[in-house]
């Protein structure tokens, strides 16, 4: 069987944007040629994640975690190398990204779902379970500008998980929300795993990584420094940090 996600010799290089970028004048004057600096965000990474695995991506700021998640999520194109994904992906959008403040929670559920490629018909059949999971039934017809950060996160998580993806990508957002709802999220993630679905999440919260993921990948300056069992890997990571 194909793995859920396979990265092969993946490299991502960014041109560092300088102040001069983004104006016509700069483009016209660029025959003066200020050499643009490159940033090697991911350096020849290969990684396979099987169906049913839950993998935590850890590493310091700027280590390439989010870049890797975005390449898996097809937001960035790799500079070289291949990405293969088997199954429907869903991304948990962080606070505000997928929501319009003037629209109600319900309207935003439809918008958010459509962004992830679901049809209106599919969403109509799922909207009740999304509202149910988010525990926002009383506020669902108010504009989301009146929501707290925790409420937004609940709505975002509810849309991401209740739209029944095969692969769930989460970028550092589970931290908000009260303890009770966090528990509920972790429970949902457990049932997700039980259904044989794949989760990749980026986090700085090593506790969360240990709780949820059996496998962890440690990224350091664009390369995979370690890949293995979460418990021992996070201990190494902590030991190395001090």
């Amino acid at each position, binding site marked *: 069987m194909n793995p859920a996600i396979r990265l092969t010799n993946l490299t991502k290089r960014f041109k560092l944007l300088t102040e001069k970028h983004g*104006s016509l004048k700069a483009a016209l004057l660029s025959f003066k040629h200020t050499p643009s600096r490159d940033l090697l965000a991911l350096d020849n990474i290969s990684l396979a994640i099987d169906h049913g695995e839950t993998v935590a991506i850890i590493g310091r700021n700027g280590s390439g975690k989010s870049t890797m998640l975005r390449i898996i*999520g097809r937001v960035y194109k790799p500079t070289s190398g291949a990405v293969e994904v088997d199954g429907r992906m869903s991304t948990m959008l962080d606070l505000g990204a997928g929501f319009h403040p003037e629209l109600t929670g319900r309207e935003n559920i439809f918008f958010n779902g459509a962004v992830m*490629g679901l049809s209106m018909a599919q969403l109509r059949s799922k909207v009740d379970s999304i509202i149910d999971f988010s525990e926002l039934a009383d506020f669902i017809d108010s504009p989301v500008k009146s929501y707290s950060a925790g409420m937004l996160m609940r709505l975002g998580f509810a849309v991401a998980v209740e739209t029944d993806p095969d692969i769930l990508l989460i970028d550092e957002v589970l931290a908000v929300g009260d303890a009770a709802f966090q528990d509920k999220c972790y429970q949902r993630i457990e049932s997700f795993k039980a259904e044989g679905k794949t989760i990749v999440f980026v986090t700085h919260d090593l506790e969360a990584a240990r709780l949820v993921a059996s496998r962890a990948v440690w990224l350091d300056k664009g390369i995979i420094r370690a890949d293995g069992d979460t418990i021992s890997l996070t201990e190494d990571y902590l030991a190395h940090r001090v």
Partner: protein
Amino acid sequence: MIEELKELARYKDLIRQLVIRDLKVRYKNSVLGFFWSLANPLIQVATIWLVVKYILRLEMPNYSAYLLVGYLPWVYFQMALLDSSQVVLTHRDLLKKVYFPREVLPISVVLANLVHFLLALVILFAYLMFYRLFLHGAPIMMSALWLPALILLETLLITGITFFVSCLNVFYQDTKYLLSALLSVMFYLTPVMYVAELVYVRIPEAHRRLLYHIYLANPLNMLTDAYRKTLLPPFTAQAMRGMKISSLPLDYAMLGVAALVCLLVAVVGYKFFNSRKWVFAEHI
């Protein structure tokens, strides 16, 4: 390109959501709501009409009808382009997080403005009916059946240009300033305030046919002229500032040329946009 169109078709519900959201949000906290999108062009038309009729004293029967029919398609063109220049930037959070065909953004801007245009056309038809009933001035003619084709062509043209505008503005934010400067020039160069026949008689007779054809090869000129000729009867020949001006028939051959240009702009614009759309997330 076929693959990309197929993928786009899978996201048609997202386009619909974006259009609905645009229409809902735009007037969410205003009392008169949708009325504003109609009021603005009407106020503009009324002002131009007053100036032309009473200050410039240009005598043309039913000028207000000719002006309105030219002005509404112009507003559609102008507003869609201006809105599209910012559309990628305003969705930066989304672009940085999720995959979706990026072209849904400019397309939804065009369609939201199309909805405004269609509503404005309802007002226009009411106005033309009023003329017919009370003044016997400008009846609605059978040739109005051409209208859907003209709207389709203009929409293709606008979509093609918005592909360029929305994409270029990601890399050069000068685009939106350049665009609004160009639009204010184009407003006077396009036969909106005046009829295309006025341009025709001003061209020296020796080169008239050729130059006028080149003029009509600009699809915006041709379409503005075609909206008028299909919705309004030919104006009566008259002397205007020492020149005898008479209505010309609709040039179907040049309409065909303009249609090809519209299609070409749409296809080239789409290719241009597609070749750059996956680096937007890195640039915003």
